[in-house]
């Protein structure tokens, strides 16, 4: 009896010994993983899809989804800042790729360099070179991009344009010609919404006015903000504003898009989340119900913004966070997330059959166009500049003075360290 018991014990111990490594392969990670983001509501399911993949790979980890709602992270970023200042960083947090990350967190020495991870996963080859430059500095690469949105897109309804006898404009001169025709028929030529969409419009206009090279030079500090190129951009912007709706400041971007859908306005310049809105909420077929073109004068240039996740120094569960970043950068993760979010994958090798007509078109441009960073969405400039620019925009909307706006930008750039 005793012998039998001892035998059983031996067998049991052996089973444990053999079983242990296997268990380790399935999930060697334990503990918590706190993911901090502002994806809720419409964007919640896309985040959930990523978390599902993570849980399959790491069943031992308890995922805490710490979402702070509010579009574009307005509320989340304030909460994040108080947490980081209080010495309580989440394991991984969402941040717009580019200067919003670099100018704020990397400059403050709060982030870990992800270059080893990029090399280990072979991401140096699958992400476009231009993108890696924009999310990295000479000291390292700082975040894993999850999605790509395009900012310089002009939306319209093809049937309406036919009715009004105008065509989608390729340059701003074309637009002004069309706008006169539209005004005569009582149609608002360009729908605009509240203030941040004015910043969004400005970057498209400025890109058209000064060209991609000057645009890049501007943010590299090689072109000054009170140079004639920037003054000209503000002048053009002022001219474009004349053709927008006067009640703009009380509309949300969806309401401005609605103006185009309802036929009250002809065009709207907005990021390609508008495509998701029109396809999903308004049930319009891309290409037939709504059309798109690169915003006037920017054909061949892809102004991008991206959501990304980084690894803060002192993350309580570092290993779990790295496993999370691996999911984000993987092809599987990107193609599960992006069709739901309405964006495209940052990877060059994404499975295009999972996306709709618009996204396929955008993905094609992404891999072939010149890529530049968006100002309004945190790629081109840091928080200090972005916040100050919002009040300069307010000043300009009131005074319409291009000289003063450029001068104010130049002072602001000095303060923001550009």
């Amino acid at each position, binding site marked *: 009896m005793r012998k039998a018991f001892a035998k059983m014990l031996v067998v049991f111990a052996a089973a444990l010994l053999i079983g242990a490594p296997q268990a380790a392969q399935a999930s060697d990670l334990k503990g918590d993983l706190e993911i901090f983001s502002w994806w809720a509501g419409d964007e919640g399911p896309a985040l959930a899809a990523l978390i599902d993949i993570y849980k399959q790979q790491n069943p031992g980890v308890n995922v805490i989804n710490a979402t702070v709602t509010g579009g574009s992270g307005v509320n989340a970023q304030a909460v994040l*800042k108080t947490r980081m200042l209080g010495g309580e960083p989440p394991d991984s947090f969402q941040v717009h790729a580019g200067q919003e990350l670099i100018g704020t967190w990397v400059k*403050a020495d709060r982030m870990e360099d992800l270059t080893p991870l990029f090399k280990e996963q072979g991401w140096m080859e699958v992400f476009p070179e231009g993108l890696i430059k924009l999310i990295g500095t000479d000291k390292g690469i700082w975040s894993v991009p999850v999605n790509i949105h395009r900012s310089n897109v002009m939306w319209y309804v093809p049937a309406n344009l036919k009715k009004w006898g105008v065509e989608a404009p390729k340059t701003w001169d074309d637009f002004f010609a069309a706008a006169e025709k539209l005004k005569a028929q009582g149609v608002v030529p360009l729908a605009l919404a509240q203030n941040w969409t004015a910043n969004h419009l400005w970057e498209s206009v400025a890109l058209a006015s000064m060209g991609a090279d000057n645009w890049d030079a501007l943010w590299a500090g090689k072109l000054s903000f009170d140079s004639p190129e920037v003054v000209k951009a503000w002048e053009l912007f002022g001219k474009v504003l004349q053709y927008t709706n*006067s009640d703009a*400041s009380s509309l949300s971007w969806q309401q401005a898009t609605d103006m185009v859908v309802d036929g009250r306005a002809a065009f709207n310049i907005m990021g390609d989340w508008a495509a998701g809105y029109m396809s999903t909420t308004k049930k319009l077929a891309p290409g037939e119900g709504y059309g798109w073109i690169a915003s006037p004068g920017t054909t061949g240039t892809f102004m991008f913004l991206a959501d990304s996740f980084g690894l803060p120094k002192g993350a309580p569960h570092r290993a779990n966070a790295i496993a999370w970043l691996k999911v984000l950068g993987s092809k599987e993760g990107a193609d599960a997330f992006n069709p739901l979010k309405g964006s495209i994958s940052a990877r060059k090798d994404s499975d295009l059959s999972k996306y709709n007509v618009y996204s396929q078109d955008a993905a094609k441009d992404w891999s072939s166009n010149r890529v530049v960073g968006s100002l309004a969405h945190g790629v081109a400039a840091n928080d200090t500049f972005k916040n100050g620019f*919002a*009040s300069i925009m307010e000043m300009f*909307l009131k005074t319409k003075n291009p000289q003063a706006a450029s001068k*104010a930008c130049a*002072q602001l750039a000095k*303060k923001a360290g550009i």
Partner: protein
Amino acid sequence: MREASLDKLKAFLTLLPSMILIGVFVYGFIGDTIWTSMTDWGGTGALALEPEKHFIGLENYIDLFTGFLGGGFRQDLVNAVYYSVMLLAGAVGLGMFIAILLDQKPRGEDLLRTIFLYPMSLSFIVSGTIWRWLLAPQGGVNVLPKYFGFKPLTFKWLSSQSAVLVFNWQDILRILLYVAAFVLIMVGMFMLKKNQGKAIKRWLVPGILLGAVVWVFGGLLPDALFMEEEHGFNLATLGIIIATIWQYSGYTMALYLAGFNGISQDLRDAAMLDGASQVAYYRHVAIPMLKPITISAVIILSHISLKMFDLIFAMTGPDNAATGHPALNMYLTTFRGNEFARGAAIAIVLFLVAAMFIVPYLVGQYRQQGRR
């Protein structure tokens, strides 16, 4: 004697913890904010574990009031002043009016009182969202006339770009001195009945003199800015003012109603016997008696109007110069722009403006106690 001092000691010991807590968490933090506002904490390395801070004195304040990039703040400050004045006049006036009507004891007074007080129970975010829909340019209030067969209104309650009562910030020193002269003269006029000699010597003559000097030599005063910068009362704030008055007039109504009920019926009867009309009773008897209530209403409303944040955020959003407010600006500067020192400076400016309302009240209270 001994027992009394023991009681005092007990009272002191009981109060000590809260005194320490308030000392640290109120006055200590005010002091820390003042200190922060005099540093250059901000810019690219602002969020480092050990951010670099240097003492720069009053530079942040000078920049806010006279700097090239402070235009947004100045507009917000002007907005807040107009906004406070309108809110005070509107909420106190309307609340008093409703209270007088309810004081006539109409039928269903209880129900009406509840209805008027109800808006206060809503949070600003909720009422702001509702009012944003009501005041939308192509909806709500503006389409009301349609139901009666008229054309819809086109007034842009929240997005109008026009402003009235516009002044140039360059002239701010001159304007402030004119205001000071005006106040001196007004006080003098009021004092004239009571104490003629003192009124003329202390108030009227200095007031007129100050006004005249500024009028003649005002050109010699330095400009606050090197360029013109116009600020005014933006018509887009009308919508927000309407919503706030709607929310707070019920509250002032409740204050006044309680006051009116506290006036004894005998006094009212006596006034009526002396031949006072309803209007005369309220004007000469009831409202003067409720001066403490008016003062506390003004204090409470003024600090609410200075803290205004969520209502504006819900109705017109951030980055809206026409309806901006220093409190919003402070939040955005600090937590979006990472300029902690500048945000602290805005906070201190707001703190000083609030003190301008509250300190005279406190002084008045102490004096009254002294008289007793």
